[in-house]
């Protein structure tokens, strides 16, 4: 009952915000102070979007980019949490490695992108590797923070019951640090996605990033924004799935 009311009003707030955003956009572009080359009107974007959807040609780009993102993200998640798990086995390792990981992440990897091409070519694999590298760090750093914040108390109890390492991980460490790890996974998603798009922009033959770059280079802002709509829809959908998992995990 109470939950429903707050659910409704939070949905209302979200819709209101969306309306505000589009309204502001509409207002800005109808005022004419901003060149439509930089900010096309919502209507032109809508038309371009419909055209894209109707032509069906978005499908192959979406598939390439989607699968690249998902692969890179999966690698980032697995490698990141595995590394974090291994490191948080001892305080000493955390003290040694956490700053190292943070330090490596500080390197503007984007400037080293050509190396990925050199080793992996211009196909999706270079983008997967590049985006997975970027996506690894938020998962690892957040998981380290999450794992080391698990209350000693619960670990001790599990230990006293003879829990295996895996069972302890699955039933204690993971749920205890879940919000923080999930945050890492979320950030990782955004970074991975942005990196894939960036990588495709820099060099590739297909993908949404390529399409966006092409539209930008040909000065077709409406088409470019239409592609961005795909990006946003994809990321909102992914985040909704994550939120669902999250509320399932902390069902109450």
């Amino acid at each position, binding site marked *: 009952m109470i939950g429903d009311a707050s659910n409704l009003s939070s949905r209302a707030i979200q819709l209101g915000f969306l309306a505000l955003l589009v309204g502001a956009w509409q207002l800005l572009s109808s005022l004419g102070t901003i060149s439509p080359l930089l900010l096309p009107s919502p209507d032109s974007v809508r038309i371009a979007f419909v055209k894209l959807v109707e032509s069906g040609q978005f499908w192959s780009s979406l598939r390439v980019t989607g699968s690249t993102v998902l692969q890179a993200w999966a690698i980032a998640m697995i490698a990141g949490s595995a590394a974090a798990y291994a490191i948080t086995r001892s305080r000493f390792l955390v003290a040694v490695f956490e700053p190292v990981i943070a330090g490596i992440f500080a390197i503007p990897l984007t400037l080293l992108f050509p190396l990925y091409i050199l080793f992996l070519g211009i196909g999706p694999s270079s983008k997967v590797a590049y985006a997975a590298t970027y996506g690894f760090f938020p998962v690892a750093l957040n998981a380290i923070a999450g794992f080391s914040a698990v209350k000693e108390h*619960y670990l001790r109890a599990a230990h*006293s*019951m*003879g829990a295996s390492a895996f069972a302890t991980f699955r*039933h204690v460490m993971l749920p*205890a640090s879940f919000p923080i790890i999930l945050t890492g996974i979320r950030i990782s998603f955004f970074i991975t996605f942005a990196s894939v798009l960036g990588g495709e922009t820099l060099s590739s033959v297909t993908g949404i990033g390529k399409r966006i770059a092409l539209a930008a280079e040909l000065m077709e802002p409406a088409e470019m924004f239409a592609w961005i709509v795909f990006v946003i829809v994809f990321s909102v959908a992914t985040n909704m799935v994550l939120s669902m998992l999250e509320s399932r995990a902390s069902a109450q």
Partner: protein
Amino acid sequence: MNKMTPAGQIVSSQTAAISIQNVRQQYPGRHSSAAVLALDDISLDIPRGEFVCLLGPSGCGKSTLLNIVGGLIKPTAGKVQVSGRTIDGPSPRDIAFIFQESTLLPWYTIRENFHVSFKFSRIARSEWQSRTEEALAAVGMSRFIDHYPEQLSVGMRQRVNLARGIALGTDIILMDEPFAALDEQTRMVLGEDLSELLAKTGKTIVFVTHSLAEAVFLSDRVYVMAARPGRLKTIVEIDEPHPRSPDFMLTTRFGDLRNQLYGLLRDEVREGLQIERKSSAAAGRT
């Protein structure tokens, strides 16, 4: 079994379920001066099938000792043997541990908490459901099986915690003040249950409590501890067969034993508090 022994006695280790030998525990502080000597050279043997209580003033090291017996803390010195084997970590097949503070996992319901514990302890899945239900019924918590720990009162959580520990079905159960948050009546009922359990199954139970009556009513022996540093002061023997009926509490022997324990602890606690008050008042003045 040779009963009535002085402090620090050695029961033949054949019969001892738990044998604690010269255990010392020092907790490091931030500076070496702030280090706390929690236990100083404790030796005691707990015979198999007995119900023993640890009694002592707050902070004397009871939980520390229990943690060491459970293999959760490695003592600074000394060793512990359980059924003849030296302990070097938890031995979940032999020992169940009921912690002083609730260790129910907040992200699981009571039912799930039980199941996870059973999973941890490698208990066959087919038994999970029945064990959970029985254990909860025994502490009057069946209705709350699908609640989350945070939806329970503190005392209810403590009962669940207790039920879960017992449900593991180990031979030795270590309980750290399992009744602290319960009313006297509930304590009594649950205490009788424990007494019955002991009589029926021959389990070994080590029980920390602050209630003298409880100690007398439940245990075969009471280990009285002294503080600063924690050490064994005396052992008081309660020679009364299990299961015990509430009538035992009305006997003069019960009263005498309770008073004996009271006397053993009273001065120490009172002095400890008083001394500190005075010395700190003095320090405040300078």
